[in-house]
């Protein structure tokens, strides 16, 4: 039976109106402007000169951009390689109904995800300080051979950045993995045990295939987030101009921010934004192609 009384024609538009108006003004229109701006050279808002594709041509040969891209890629890959196994490992350890204090552990591991990047970065600036910082202080107390002047924020920028991001997001990703682990069929695990499979065999042949779709999603989300990293390094390396010595801490979005808002070239910043968008879309398409291939 079809509905006796249809909704009035205005109803959906009434509910959509506030969102649509704001979306058009502050999302769709800026997106159009981002395309136009990327073909201009500007000196602050409102003062632009059309330069065609020169921004992109310049970008391709801009050594600072390539430095930023390389740093960002190093951070993304390093972060992924360390964070994913830690997050998955913690999730597997916590995924036992008989485990006592499961909720408390989950709470503790998750809690850093609440801390904003600025606040975490402020904390980690001091944690990685020479002599007095928590890391150097603790390592020197434990191992007398450790150099208390170890230059985390001067020479090991990406390592300290990856560690800070690990603290922030390992527990967050763990919660995703925990949810994914609920899809692992217990009967298959039992059957594998009876067939004589060890923990590793069960993980490889039962657990991993079952969580693969969600794992793929987490990896993609993590890559997209890492590629946009800005505030964490910017505040952590603020004393060295946000980018660290020799721009070793410069990331793509940090470069975008600096050209757009410290130098005032909104056009060049938009060009950087488009390259970033293209990279992310390419990664998303790759993920889609890969996950399609798996389900077939």
């Amino acid at each position, binding site marked *: 039976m079809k*509905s006796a*009384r249809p*909704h009035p024609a205005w*109803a*959906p*538009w*009434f*509910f*959509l109106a506030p*969102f*649509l108006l*704001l979306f058009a*003004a*502050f*999302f769709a229109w*800026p*997106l159009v*402007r*981002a395309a136009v701006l990327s073909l201009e050279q500007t000196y602050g*808002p*409102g003062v632009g000169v059309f330069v065609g594709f020169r921004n992109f041509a310049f970008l391709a040969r801009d050594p600072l951009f390539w430095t930023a891209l390389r740093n960002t890629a190093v951070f993304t890959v390093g972060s992924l390689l360390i964070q994913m196994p830690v997050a998955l490992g*913690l999730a597997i*350890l916590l995924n036992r109904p008989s485990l006592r204090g499961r909720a408390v552990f989950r709470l*503790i*591991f998750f809690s850093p995800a*609440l*801390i*904003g*990047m*600025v*606040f975490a970065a*402020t*904390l980690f*600036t001091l944690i990685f300080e020479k002599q*007095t910082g*928590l890391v150097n202080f603790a390592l020197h107390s434990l191992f007398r051979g450790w150099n208390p002047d170890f230059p985390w924020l001067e020479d090991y920028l990406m390592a300290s950045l990856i560690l800070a991001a690990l*603290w922030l997001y390992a*527990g*967050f990703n763990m*919660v*995703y993995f925990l*949810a*994914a682990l609920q899809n692992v069929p217990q009967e298959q695990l039992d059957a594998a045990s009876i067939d004589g499979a060890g923990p590793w065999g069960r993980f490889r042949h039962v657990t991993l295939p079952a969580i693969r779709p969600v794992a793929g999603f987490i990896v993609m*989300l993590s890559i997209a987030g890492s590629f*946009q990293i*800005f505030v964490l390094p910017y*505040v952590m390396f*603020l*004393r060295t101009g946000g980018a660290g010595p020799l721009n070793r801490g410069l990331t793509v979005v940090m470069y*975008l*921010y600096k050209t*757009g*808002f410290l130098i005032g070239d*909104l056009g060049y*910043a*938009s060009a950087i*934004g488009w390259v*970033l*968008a293209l990279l*992310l879309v390419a990664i998303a398409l790759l993920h889609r192609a890969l996950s399609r291939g798996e389900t077939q």
Partner: protein
Amino acid sequence: MNARRLARVLGRPLLYAFLVLFAALTAVPFAWMITSAFKSGGDFFLSLFLPAGNGFLGVAWDHLTLDNFRRLFREVPMARSLVNSVFLASVTSLFATLCGAMGGYALSRFEFRGRGLLTSLVLGTAILPVPLLLAPRFELIYHLHLLDTFAGYLLPQLAPAFGVFLFRQAMLNHIPAEIIESARLEGCGEIRIFFTLVLPLVRPMVGAFIIITFLGVWNDFIGPQIILQSAGRQPLAVTLAGLGSNYGNDYGMMMAGTLVSVAPIICLFLLLQKEFISGLTSGTVKG
């Protein structure tokens, strides 16, 4: 057989030892921040956490001081920033949730021309990175003469494409079309249906989305950094980042400022754990 039993007997304590170690590593930065905030400059360098002394548990409790907090609120517009953060985060979470819920409702429970196109438009733009919009949005806010105003920061936050998507999913799953139809038959108005029938049915999503929006604005740095320039309008995130340039070597001050900035969120989290976790991880497993 024996090896397996040994592993089982040893496994439990080993598992707990490992988990406790990891929990400690996670908690240590928090503990360091909190203890540092209550230490004077001299004590900071002498001990890792609490200053050693002859008091209870071998701690010099009388060395702990509120001096950092006093100076923080006296020398820096910290109280103002705290109020600004609460204001911006509350207003945004309230109105963005309303906008998102209404949009999601329209896209999930109504049939109209252009629905498919609108839905894919909203979903398609969600993949674009926010930094791409920084420059054109700044330009737009400048032309609207809204630079350095709360409205200039707030307005773009109130159209959450992701929220529309989440609410659309939640309403497709949790609101049977028959309920809405029978309410209509009984003569219930469209707006009343939305507020008294639809919203209560997706209450978990409403709570989760309010929380993620609140958290997102509280922790946002780049938005207010670009739009809100005068000190009296800045939220905690911007004020704290600025603190480093004047008080970078004053560890007690820095940690007191960080503690003041994160304590409200941690308190909220302890009160609403379930909503926080489901909110922050929404849209993946269910979607």
